Protein backbone atom coordinates (compact mmCIF):
# COMPACT_ATOMS: atom_id res chain seq x y z
CA UNK A 1 0.00 0.00 0.00
CA UNK A 2 1.49 3.36 -0.93
CA UNK A 3 0.89 6.83 0.39
CA UNK A 4 -1.63 7.67 -2.31
CA UNK A 5 -3.76 4.69 -1.46
CA UNK A 6 -3.58 5.62 2.19
CA UNK A 7 -4.71 9.14 1.33
CA UNK A 8 -7.62 7.76 -0.66
CA UNK A 9 -8.71 5.65 2.29
CA UNK A 10 -8.52 8.59 4.64
CA UNK A 11 -10.50 10.75 2.22
CA UNK A 12 -13.11 8.02 2.02
CA UNK A 13 -13.46 8.00 5.78
CA UNK A 14 -13.77 11.78 5.86
CA UNK A 15 -16.12 12.14 2.89
CA UNK A 16 -18.53 9.57 4.21
CA UNK A 17 -18.31 10.74 7.79
CA UNK A 18 -17.26 7.28 8.98
CA UNK A 19 -16.19 6.96 12.59
CA UNK A 20 -14.18 3.83 12.04
CA UNK A 21 -12.96 1.77 9.11
CA UNK A 22 -10.99 -1.41 9.09
CA UNK A 23 -9.66 -2.97 5.91
CA UNK A 24 -7.36 -5.82 5.09
CA UNK A 25 -5.26 -5.70 1.97
CA UNK A 26 -2.36 -7.91 0.96
CA UNK A 27 -1.66 -9.02 4.50
CA UNK A 28 -1.81 -5.52 5.96
CA UNK A 29 -4.70 -4.62 8.18
CA UNK A 30 -5.46 -0.96 8.66
CA UNK A 31 -7.86 0.58 11.09
CA UNK A 32 -8.80 4.20 10.79
CA UNK A 33 -10.65 5.88 13.57
CA UNK A 34 -11.72 9.47 13.94
CA UNK A 35 -11.18 11.40 17.13
CA UNK A 36 -13.98 11.10 19.61
CA UNK A 37 -15.55 8.30 17.65
CA UNK A 38 -14.87 5.60 20.14
CA UNK A 39 -15.26 5.32 23.86
CA UNK A 40 -12.28 5.92 26.02
CA UNK A 41 -9.05 6.39 24.24
CA UNK A 42 -8.43 8.72 21.39
CA UNK A 43 -5.60 7.51 19.24
CA UNK A 44 -4.32 11.01 18.67
CA UNK A 45 -3.53 11.26 22.35
CA UNK A 46 -0.98 8.56 21.82
CA UNK A 47 0.51 10.46 18.98
CA UNK A 48 0.50 13.87 20.54
CA UNK A 49 3.81 15.46 19.90
CA UNK A 50 5.38 13.34 17.27
CA UNK A 51 2.88 14.31 14.60
CA UNK A 52 5.70 15.47 12.38
CA UNK A 53 6.99 11.95 12.45
CA UNK A 54 3.70 10.83 11.12
CA UNK A 55 3.55 12.11 7.58
CA UNK A 56 -0.13 12.01 6.89
CA UNK A 57 -2.08 14.43 4.75
CA UNK A 58 -3.73 17.24 6.72
CA UNK A 59 -7.19 15.77 6.46
CA UNK A 60 -5.93 12.76 8.35
CA UNK A 61 -4.59 14.78 11.21
CA UNK A 62 -7.75 14.18 13.19
CA UNK A 63 -7.52 10.43 12.73
CA UNK A 64 -5.33 7.90 14.37
CA UNK A 65 -4.02 5.47 11.86
CA UNK A 66 -1.99 2.45 12.48
CA UNK A 67 -1.71 -1.13 11.56
CA UNK A 68 -3.55 -3.66 13.57
CA UNK A 69 -2.53 -7.14 12.72
CA UNK A 70 -3.62 -9.76 15.14
CA UNK A 71 -2.42 -10.92 18.50
CA UNK A 72 1.15 -9.86 18.23
CA UNK A 73 1.14 -7.32 15.45
CA UNK A 74 4.16 -6.47 13.44
CA UNK A 75 4.83 -2.81 13.21
CA UNK A 76 4.55 -1.18 9.86
CA UNK A 77 6.93 1.50 8.77
CA UNK A 78 5.31 4.82 8.11
CA UNK A 79 6.11 6.20 4.70
CA UNK A 80 9.20 8.33 4.64
CA UNK A 81 8.40 12.01 4.69
CA UNK A 82 10.27 14.69 2.76
CA UNK A 83 13.08 15.19 5.20
CA UNK A 84 12.84 12.28 7.53
CA UNK A 85 15.13 9.50 6.59
CA UNK A 86 14.63 7.45 9.72
CA UNK A 87 11.89 4.89 9.68
CA UNK A 88 9.69 4.96 12.73
CA UNK A 89 7.29 2.25 13.64
CA UNK A 90 4.34 2.16 15.97
CA UNK A 91 3.14 -1.21 17.12
CA UNK A 92 -0.01 -1.96 19.05
CA UNK A 93 -0.06 -4.81 21.54
CA UNK A 94 -3.53 -6.33 21.69
CA UNK A 95 -5.18 -8.64 24.14
CA UNK A 96 -4.93 -12.27 23.06
CA UNK A 97 -7.81 -13.20 25.38
CA UNK A 98 -10.88 -11.95 27.19
CA UNK A 99 -10.14 -11.21 30.83
CA UNK A 100 -9.23 -8.65 33.46
CA UNK A 101 -6.28 -6.37 32.80
CA UNK A 102 -3.69 -5.79 35.51
CA UNK A 103 -0.82 -3.39 35.14
CA UNK A 104 1.19 -4.74 38.07
CA UNK A 105 2.14 -8.19 39.34
CA UNK A 106 0.16 -7.61 42.52
CA UNK A 107 -2.05 -4.81 43.86
CA UNK A 108 0.63 -3.04 45.89
CA UNK A 109 3.45 -3.39 43.34
CA UNK A 110 4.43 -0.73 40.82
CA UNK A 111 3.16 -1.09 37.25
CA UNK A 112 5.20 -3.26 34.90
CA UNK A 113 5.52 -0.30 32.52
CA UNK A 114 4.45 3.33 32.26
CA UNK A 115 4.10 5.65 29.29
CA UNK A 116 7.68 6.54 28.44
CA UNK A 117 9.13 3.24 29.68
CA UNK A 118 11.72 1.65 27.48
CA UNK A 119 10.85 -1.98 26.87
CA UNK A 120 12.72 -4.94 25.47
CA UNK A 121 11.28 -7.71 23.37
CA UNK A 122 9.96 -10.38 25.72
CA UNK A 123 9.51 -7.98 28.65
CA UNK A 124 6.24 -8.38 30.57
CA UNK A 125 3.83 -5.48 29.99
CA UNK A 126 0.79 -6.61 31.96
CA UNK A 127 -1.20 -9.57 33.24
CA UNK A 128 -4.61 -10.59 31.95
CA UNK A 129 -6.59 -12.90 34.19
CA UNK A 130 -9.26 -15.23 32.92
CA UNK A 131 -10.62 -18.20 34.82
CA UNK A 132 -7.90 -17.72 37.42
CA UNK A 133 -5.25 -18.22 34.77
CA UNK A 134 -2.93 -15.24 35.02
CA UNK A 135 -1.44 -14.58 31.61
CA UNK A 136 1.67 -12.48 31.28
CA UNK A 137 1.58 -10.41 28.11
CA UNK A 138 4.97 -9.66 26.61
CA UNK A 139 6.20 -6.87 24.44
CA UNK A 140 6.94 -8.28 21.03
CA UNK A 141 9.29 -5.38 20.41
CA UNK A 142 12.16 -3.29 21.60
CA UNK A 143 10.91 0.25 21.95
CA UNK A 144 9.15 2.84 24.06
CA UNK A 145 5.65 2.64 25.50
CA UNK A 146 3.73 5.61 24.10
CA UNK A 147 0.24 4.74 25.28
CA UNK A 148 -1.59 2.50 27.71
CA UNK A 149 -5.18 2.11 26.53
CA UNK A 150 -6.77 0.29 29.46
CA UNK A 151 -7.03 1.11 33.13
CA UNK A 152 -5.87 -1.29 35.79
CA UNK A 153 -8.50 -3.81 36.86
CA UNK A 154 -10.76 -3.28 33.85
CA UNK A 155 -12.14 -6.04 31.65
CA UNK A 156 -10.63 -6.39 28.17
CA UNK A 157 -11.97 -8.08 25.07
CA UNK A 158 -10.16 -10.29 22.61
CA UNK A 159 -8.16 -8.11 20.24
CA UNK A 160 -8.59 -4.97 22.36
CA UNK A 161 -5.67 -2.56 22.24
CA UNK A 162 -3.52 -2.58 25.36
CA UNK A 163 -0.32 -0.70 24.59
CA UNK A 164 1.22 1.31 21.78
CA UNK A 165 4.94 0.91 21.42
CA UNK A 166 7.18 3.05 19.26
CA UNK A 167 9.59 0.44 18.05
CA UNK A 168 13.31 0.92 17.73
Amino acid at each position, binding site marked *: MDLDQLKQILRLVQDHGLSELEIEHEGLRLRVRRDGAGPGVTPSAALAGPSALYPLPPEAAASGVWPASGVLPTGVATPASDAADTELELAVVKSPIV*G*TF*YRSPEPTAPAFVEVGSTVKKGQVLCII*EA*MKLLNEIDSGYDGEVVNVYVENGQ*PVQYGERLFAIRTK
Partner: protein
Amino acid sequence: MVSDPLPRDFVEAFDALREPLGPFGQRHIFFDTIGSTNDIVAALSAEGADEGVVVIADAQTAGRGRRGRTWFSPPGAGLYVSVLLAPGRAATEPVRATSLLTLAAGVALAEGIEGATGLSADIKWPNDLRVGTRKLAGILAEGAAVPGPPTALRVVLGFGINVGPAAYPPDLAARATSLESELGRPVDRALVCVHALASLAARYGDLMTGRFDAILDHWRRRAPGHVGARVRWQDGGEPRSGVTAGIDDTGALLVHVGASLRRVIAGEVIWE
Protein backbone atom coordinates in the same frame (compact mmCIF):
# COMPACT_ATOMS: atom_id res chain seq x y z
CA MET B 1 19.40 -23.82 41.41
CA VAL B 2 20.50 -27.19 42.74
CA SER B 3 17.71 -29.62 43.47
CA ASP B 4 17.61 -32.22 46.23
CA PRO B 5 17.12 -35.97 45.85
CA LEU B 6 13.51 -37.07 45.52
CA PRO B 7 12.59 -38.62 48.90
CA ARG B 8 12.29 -42.39 48.99
CA ASP B 9 8.52 -42.41 49.61
CA PHE B 10 7.97 -40.23 46.52
CA VAL B 11 10.22 -42.46 44.38
CA GLU B 12 8.20 -45.51 45.42
CA ALA B 13 4.84 -43.80 44.92
CA PHE B 14 5.82 -42.60 41.45
CA ASP B 15 7.11 -46.06 40.49
CA ALA B 16 3.89 -47.70 41.64
CA LEU B 17 1.70 -45.48 39.47
CA ARG B 18 3.88 -44.76 36.45
CA GLU B 19 1.36 -45.46 33.70
CA PRO B 20 -1.56 -43.29 34.85
CA LEU B 21 0.86 -40.42 35.37
CA GLY B 22 1.11 -39.88 31.62
CA PRO B 23 3.16 -36.75 30.95
CA PHE B 24 3.86 -36.33 34.67
CA GLY B 25 5.74 -39.63 34.96
CA GLN B 26 8.87 -38.45 33.19
CA ARG B 27 10.77 -35.80 35.06
CA HIS B 28 10.51 -34.98 38.78
CA ILE B 29 12.56 -32.29 40.46
CA PHE B 30 12.47 -31.99 44.23
CA PHE B 31 13.57 -29.21 46.57
CA ASP B 32 13.68 -29.34 50.36
CA THR B 33 13.08 -25.59 50.30
CA ILE B 34 12.51 -23.30 47.34
CA GLY B 35 11.10 -19.81 46.73
CA SER B 36 8.17 -20.91 44.60
CA THR B 37 7.68 -24.11 42.61
CA ASN B 38 5.83 -22.09 39.94
CA ASP B 39 8.88 -19.90 39.42
CA ILE B 40 11.09 -22.95 38.93
CA VAL B 41 8.75 -24.42 36.32
CA ALA B 42 8.51 -21.03 34.57
CA ALA B 43 12.31 -20.90 34.42
CA LEU B 44 12.42 -24.46 33.08
CA SER B 45 9.82 -23.53 30.47
CA ALA B 46 11.91 -20.56 29.38
CA GLU B 47 14.83 -22.95 28.94
CA GLY B 48 12.69 -25.12 26.69
CA ALA B 49 11.67 -27.86 29.12
CA ASP B 50 9.14 -30.39 27.87
CA GLU B 51 5.51 -30.30 28.88
CA GLY B 52 4.90 -32.49 31.94
CA VAL B 53 7.94 -31.58 34.03
CA VAL B 54 7.03 -31.75 37.74
CA VAL B 55 8.60 -29.66 40.52
CA ILE B 56 7.87 -30.58 44.14
CA ALA B 57 8.97 -28.79 47.30
CA ASP B 58 8.74 -29.64 50.96
CA ALA B 59 8.62 -25.95 51.81
CA GLN B 60 8.34 -22.66 49.93
CA THR B 61 9.78 -19.40 51.19
CA ALA B 62 7.78 -17.33 48.69
CA GLY B 63 4.75 -19.52 48.03
CA ARG B 64 2.04 -17.41 46.48
CA GLY B 65 -1.54 -17.37 45.37
CA ARG B 66 -3.49 -15.16 43.04
CA ARG B 67 -2.46 -11.49 42.73
CA GLY B 68 0.39 -11.56 45.22
CA ARG B 69 -1.38 -13.41 48.00
CA THR B 70 0.95 -15.47 50.17
CA TRP B 71 0.53 -19.24 50.22
CA PHE B 72 1.71 -20.31 53.67
CA SER B 73 4.16 -23.14 52.92
CA PRO B 74 6.06 -24.27 56.03
CA PRO B 75 8.19 -27.44 55.95
CA GLY B 76 6.52 -30.78 56.55
CA ALA B 77 2.94 -29.45 56.54
CA GLY B 78 1.95 -29.38 52.91
CA LEU B 79 2.49 -30.46 49.38
CA TYR B 80 3.68 -27.84 46.89
CA VAL B 81 3.75 -29.01 43.31
CA SER B 82 3.95 -27.30 39.92
CA VAL B 83 3.78 -28.72 36.41
CA LEU B 84 4.23 -27.39 32.89
CA LEU B 85 1.28 -27.66 30.49
CA ALA B 86 0.51 -26.62 26.91
CA PRO B 87 -3.32 -26.48 26.65
CA GLY B 88 -3.14 -24.58 23.36
CA ARG B 89 -2.15 -27.85 21.69
CA ALA B 90 -5.62 -29.31 22.36
CA ALA B 91 -7.00 -31.31 19.43
CA THR B 92 -10.26 -29.37 19.32
CA GLU B 93 -11.13 -25.85 20.45
CA PRO B 94 -7.79 -24.89 22.04
CA VAL B 95 -9.21 -21.60 23.30
CA ARG B 96 -12.01 -23.38 25.16
CA ALA B 97 -9.55 -25.99 26.42
CA THR B 98 -7.36 -23.23 27.83
CA SER B 99 -10.37 -21.58 29.42
CA LEU B 100 -11.40 -24.84 31.10
CA LEU B 101 -7.90 -25.78 32.24
CA THR B 102 -8.19 -24.33 35.73
CA LEU B 103 -11.58 -25.98 36.32
CA ALA B 104 -10.17 -29.29 35.10
CA ALA B 105 -7.30 -28.88 37.55
CA GLY B 106 -9.74 -28.30 40.41
CA VAL B 107 -11.65 -31.46 39.53
CA ALA B 108 -8.40 -33.42 39.25
CA LEU B 109 -7.12 -32.23 42.60
CA ALA B 110 -10.40 -33.14 44.33
CA GLU B 111 -10.37 -36.55 42.68
CA GLY B 112 -6.71 -37.16 43.54
CA ILE B 113 -7.26 -36.27 47.19
CA GLU B 114 -10.34 -38.46 47.37
CA GLY B 115 -8.51 -41.34 45.68
CA ALA B 116 -5.55 -41.16 48.07
CA THR B 117 -7.39 -40.41 51.32
CA GLY B 118 -11.14 -40.86 50.89
CA LEU B 119 -11.77 -37.24 51.81
CA SER B 120 -14.29 -35.48 49.59
CA ALA B 121 -13.69 -31.74 49.18
CA ASP B 122 -15.98 -29.18 47.55
CA ILE B 123 -14.84 -26.95 44.72
CA LYS B 124 -15.32 -23.20 45.03
CA TRP B 125 -15.32 -21.46 41.66
CA PRO B 126 -13.10 -21.72 39.83
CA ASN B 127 -10.88 -24.19 41.63
CA ASP B 128 -10.29 -23.72 45.36
CA LEU B 129 -10.85 -26.90 47.36
CA ARG B 130 -12.72 -26.50 50.61
CA VAL B 131 -14.13 -28.59 53.40
CA GLY B 132 -17.09 -26.63 54.74
CA THR B 133 -15.89 -23.04 54.69
CA ARG B 134 -12.22 -23.87 55.21
CA LYS B 135 -9.67 -24.00 52.43
CA LEU B 136 -7.86 -27.29 51.93
CA ALA B 137 -6.01 -26.68 48.68
CA GLY B 138 -5.44 -23.97 46.12
CA ILE B 139 -4.29 -23.74 42.54
CA LEU B 140 -2.31 -20.98 40.85
CA ALA B 141 -2.08 -21.09 37.05
CA GLU B 142 0.24 -18.69 35.26
CA GLY B 143 0.50 -18.37 31.50
CA ALA B 144 3.88 -17.52 30.13
CA ALA B 145 3.55 -15.25 27.15
CA VAL B 146 4.85 -16.84 24.02
CA PRO B 147 5.07 -14.86 20.81
CA GLY B 148 2.95 -16.37 18.09
CA PRO B 149 -0.40 -18.09 17.95
CA PRO B 150 -2.44 -18.90 21.08
CA THR B 151 -1.54 -22.55 20.57
CA ALA B 152 1.97 -21.71 21.70
CA LEU B 153 0.76 -20.78 25.19
CA ARG B 154 2.45 -22.63 28.02
CA VAL B 155 0.91 -22.70 31.45
CA VAL B 156 2.59 -23.24 34.78
CA LEU B 157 0.03 -24.91 37.02
CA GLY B 158 0.88 -25.04 40.70
CA PHE B 159 -1.08 -26.49 43.56
CA GLY B 160 -0.71 -26.40 47.30
CA ILE B 161 -2.44 -28.94 49.53
CA ASN B 162 -2.53 -28.55 53.30
CA VAL B 163 -1.56 -32.03 54.47
CA GLY B 164 -0.93 -31.71 58.17
CA PRO B 165 -1.90 -29.14 60.78
CA ALA B 166 0.48 -26.22 60.90
CA ALA B 167 1.05 -23.15 63.01
CA TYR B 168 -1.04 -20.97 60.71
CA PRO B 169 -0.87 -17.22 61.07
CA PRO B 170 -3.96 -15.98 62.98
CA ASP B 171 -5.71 -14.64 59.85
CA LEU B 172 -5.46 -18.07 58.24
CA ALA B 173 -6.23 -20.26 61.23
CA ALA B 174 -9.98 -19.81 60.95
CA ARG B 175 -10.06 -20.21 57.18
CA ALA B 176 -7.70 -23.14 56.57
CA THR B 177 -7.88 -26.85 57.18
CA SER B 178 -5.72 -29.85 56.34
CA LEU B 179 -6.16 -33.46 55.29
CA GLU B 180 -4.94 -34.75 58.64
CA SER B 181 -7.16 -32.37 60.62
CA GLU B 182 -10.20 -33.48 58.66
CA LEU B 183 -9.39 -37.20 58.71
CA GLY B 184 -7.95 -37.37 62.22
CA ARG B 185 -5.09 -39.60 61.10
CA PRO B 186 -1.69 -39.33 59.41
CA VAL B 187 -1.70 -39.02 55.61
CA ASP B 188 0.86 -40.32 53.15
CA ARG B 189 1.96 -37.14 51.40
CA ALA B 190 3.70 -38.92 48.52
CA LEU B 191 0.58 -40.93 47.81
CA VAL B 192 -1.55 -37.76 47.71
CA CYS B 193 0.97 -36.14 45.35
CA VAL B 194 1.03 -39.06 42.93
CA HIS B 195 -2.76 -39.50 42.95
CA ALA B 196 -3.25 -35.79 42.34
CA LEU B 197 -0.85 -35.91 39.38
CA ALA B 198 -2.48 -39.06 37.98
CA SER B 199 -5.91 -37.41 38.21
CA LEU B 200 -4.49 -34.30 36.58
CA ALA B 201 -3.10 -36.44 33.75
CA ALA B 202 -6.56 -37.94 33.21
CA ARG B 203 -8.44 -34.62 33.27
CA TYR B 204 -5.77 -32.93 31.16
CA GLY B 205 -6.23 -35.80 28.72
CA ASP B 206 -9.98 -35.02 28.64
CA LEU B 207 -9.18 -31.41 27.89
CA MET B 208 -6.73 -32.20 25.12
CA THR B 209 -9.13 -34.59 23.38
CA GLY B 210 -12.22 -32.39 23.55
CA ARG B 211 -14.06 -34.24 26.33
CA PHE B 212 -15.15 -30.94 27.84
CA ASP B 213 -18.53 -32.21 29.05
CA ALA B 214 -16.86 -34.76 31.32
CA ILE B 215 -14.92 -31.97 33.00
CA LEU B 216 -17.94 -29.68 33.32
CA ASP B 217 -20.15 -32.50 34.68
CA HIS B 218 -17.66 -33.53 37.33
CA TRP B 219 -16.94 -29.96 38.25
CA ARG B 220 -20.66 -29.25 38.75
CA ARG B 221 -21.07 -32.34 40.92
CA ARG B 222 -18.27 -31.22 43.21
CA ALA B 223 -19.26 -27.54 43.41
CA PRO B 224 -22.51 -27.29 45.38
CA GLY B 225 -22.23 -23.51 45.63
CA HIS B 226 -22.33 -22.87 41.91
CA VAL B 227 -26.13 -22.71 41.91
CA GLY B 228 -28.36 -20.78 44.28
CA ALA B 229 -25.70 -19.31 46.55
CA ARG B 230 -25.30 -15.65 47.42
CA VAL B 231 -21.95 -14.24 46.28
CA ARG B 232 -20.19 -10.92 45.96
CA TRP B 233 -17.29 -9.76 43.83
CA GLN B 234 -15.64 -6.76 42.22
CA ASP B 235 -16.49 -5.94 38.63
CA GLY B 236 -13.96 -3.47 37.24
CA GLY B 237 -13.76 -1.86 40.68
CA GLU B 238 -17.54 -1.90 41.24
CA PRO B 239 -18.81 -4.07 44.09
CA ARG B 240 -21.51 -6.50 42.96
CA SER B 241 -23.56 -9.20 44.57
CA GLY B 242 -26.05 -11.75 43.38
CA VAL B 243 -27.11 -15.38 43.36
CA THR B 244 -25.13 -18.04 41.48
CA ALA B 245 -26.82 -19.59 38.46
CA GLY B 246 -24.34 -22.23 37.31
CA ILE B 247 -21.37 -22.13 34.97
CA ASP B 248 -21.44 -21.87 31.20
CA ASP B 249 -19.61 -24.06 28.68
CA THR B 250 -16.38 -22.09 29.03
CA GLY B 251 -16.43 -22.37 32.82
CA ALA B 252 -17.52 -18.78 33.49
CA LEU B 253 -19.63 -18.33 36.62
CA LEU B 254 -23.15 -17.05 35.99
CA VAL B 255 -24.73 -14.84 38.60
CA HIS B 256 -28.22 -13.37 38.79
CA VAL B 257 -28.05 -9.72 39.77
CA GLY B 258 -31.61 -8.51 40.05
CA ALA B 259 -33.21 -9.26 36.70
CA SER B 260 -29.96 -9.54 34.78
CA LEU B 261 -27.54 -12.43 34.41
CA ARG B 262 -23.85 -11.63 34.72
CA ARG B 263 -20.94 -13.72 33.54
CA VAL B 264 -17.89 -13.68 35.82
CA ILE B 265 -14.61 -14.77 34.30
CA ALA B 266 -11.98 -13.25 36.57
CA GLY B 267 -11.33 -11.93 40.02
CA GLU B 268 -12.21 -13.26 43.40
CA VAL B 269 -15.77 -14.28 44.16
CA ILE B 270 -16.74 -14.50 47.82
CA TRP B 271 -19.44 -16.89 48.98
CA GLU B 272 -21.52 -15.37 51.78
